[in-house]
């Protein structure tokens, strides 16, 4: 179990970005984390993987535990070695390296099993196998997202934290990512899925959290969240009782707005 308890995070000693957040990601689950821009989703992921430091942030109160061991003071590379991996918002592939080199960097902490893991990742993402010698910067956005996820899978993580993996992707590709997340989870990796696309996230998650201004405001099984009136209104763009077609346009609109503001 990967857990945060009463987590408070401060940036630059003044900005309070998380105000007592508690979440649990069970060993084999898919957990969705929703929330509007600036709610603190990325900050929470950073706290889970030791990345606050380089953003001048720190855990002021509370703790992060992995199987009851505190990990919030660990360096990012040790967190990775403990099997917790984050895929950053915006893909962040190493654009000048080729596809296979990107994957090899992903295997930095697991070189002895690299050959097997390359096979596994190419099986999961056949398009990466076809383009293994291509420069990563020339891949399409969707392919880069697959590369970013594949790269994280190169060390066989127990927990995979995905920060808005479908941002800016075409519906077909969103579906693709959704299937991949399910498959990864089936392979025994727990997933924490940060998403603006609440419909997609809640359709595959077991449990969901909704954050607002640094707090968790809803904490329910995914199915219950899908039926929650507030969630339907704010995150699915549905007004109670409306049909699905309209809502789809609204979420898309919302996603686009998000892309501009990013």
């Amino acid at each position: 179990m990967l857990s945060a308890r009463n987590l408070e995070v401060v940036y630059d000693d003044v900005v309070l970005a998380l105000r007592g957040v508690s979440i649990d990601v069970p060993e084999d689950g898919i957990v969705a984390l929703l929330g509007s821009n600036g709610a603190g989703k990325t900050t929470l992921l950073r706290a889970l993987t030791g990345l606050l430091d380089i953003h001048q942030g720190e855990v002021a109160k509370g703790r992060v535990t992995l199987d009851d061991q505190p990990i919030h003071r660990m360096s990012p590379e040790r967190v990775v070695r403990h099997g917790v991996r984050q895929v950053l918002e915006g893909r962040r592939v190493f654009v000048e390296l080729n596809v296979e080199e990107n994957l090899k960097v992903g295997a930095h902490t697991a070189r002895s099993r690299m050959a097997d893991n390359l096979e596994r990742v190419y099986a999961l993402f056949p398009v990466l196998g076809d383009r293994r010698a291509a420069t990563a910067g020339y891949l399409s956005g969707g392919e880069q997202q697959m590369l970013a996820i594949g790269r994280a899978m190169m060390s066989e993580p127990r927990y995979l934290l995905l920060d808005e993996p479908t941002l800016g992707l075409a519906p077909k590709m969103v579906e693709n990512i959704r299937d991949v997340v399910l498959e990864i989870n089936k392979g025994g990796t727990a997933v924490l899925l940060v998403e603006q696309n609440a419909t997609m996230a809640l359709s595959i998650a077991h449990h969901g959290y909704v954050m607002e201004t640094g707090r968790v405001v809803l904490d329910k099984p995914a199915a219950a969240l899908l039926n929650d009136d507030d969630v339907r209104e704010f995150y699915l763009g549905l007004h109670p009782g409306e049909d699905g077609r309209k809502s789809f346009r609204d979420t898309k609109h919302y996603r686009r707005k998000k892309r501009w503001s990013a």
Partner: protein
Amino acid sequence: MTQFLEVVLRGLGSGSIYALLALGFVIIYKSTGVISFAQPAMMLTGATITSYVGPALGVMLFTGFSFFVSVAVAALLTAVLALVIERGAIRPMVGRPAFVVAIITIGIDIVVRVVTSGFIGLGARNIPNPWGLERVELAGLRVQERHLVSLATLALVVAVLFWFYRYTRHGLAMRAAAFDQEAALTQGVSVGSVFALSWAMAGALAAVAGSLLAISAGVDRQIWIVALVALPAIILGGLDSLEGAVVGGLAVGVVEALVGTYQRDYAPWLGDNFAVVSPYVLMLLVLLAKPYGIFGTPEVRRV
């Protein structure tokens, strides 16, 4: 024509030394975003260590071989020194503005040079080697052997670096961290080890360069100045480009040799020592055409 080619070859020889130094600057710059002005001290110290290790080996071994063994030992020890400096004085400064760190490296450079100079003494310390100022004839060209040794060493270093960056775990990690530090951290790469490794590599390269430089005239307290010629070389090659460092270093060497040979006859009005400033003139000319250097990337990244 023969003379011209001989001059070019000579320029490539001294250019190889500039290129090795330039590689050190670029390796540190790429991983840390800082230009380390401690490189001259690393070069001086490396050459000095070679001058102590060489005689200790020299009697027993074929001298060309003992030269390379002593250079390897010096490179290793200089790398260790660089590691200690990085750990002790640079790492605590991570996150400070690049120019603050650069100024700290100037301080380190001075301290290390003063200490090393104490081991050199007032004269020059000889480095045992079979070449000295001997010449060989190569395809009708007469050229000093030491220039060929320098060129061959550079070729070997470039081949090793190519292999290192392309195929090894740490080489790939260094390239990744140079592009995107946070993304590299999420791969389990320790950025601290990347910093340390880049300082160690640069230190080793400076030691090799200093030892090659000392083949002909030995090590004296002033040879560190040569390391500064690598600065125009890295600027004209592109600060963040390893290819640029090699090409820039060789270009500076060749231009310097050509100007040194021909300027007196063709442009005497430029004065007696124009060869010394020619690397900077070359740098300015290149920057006019290519503001980021020949191989440099426009967006300069920082830590």
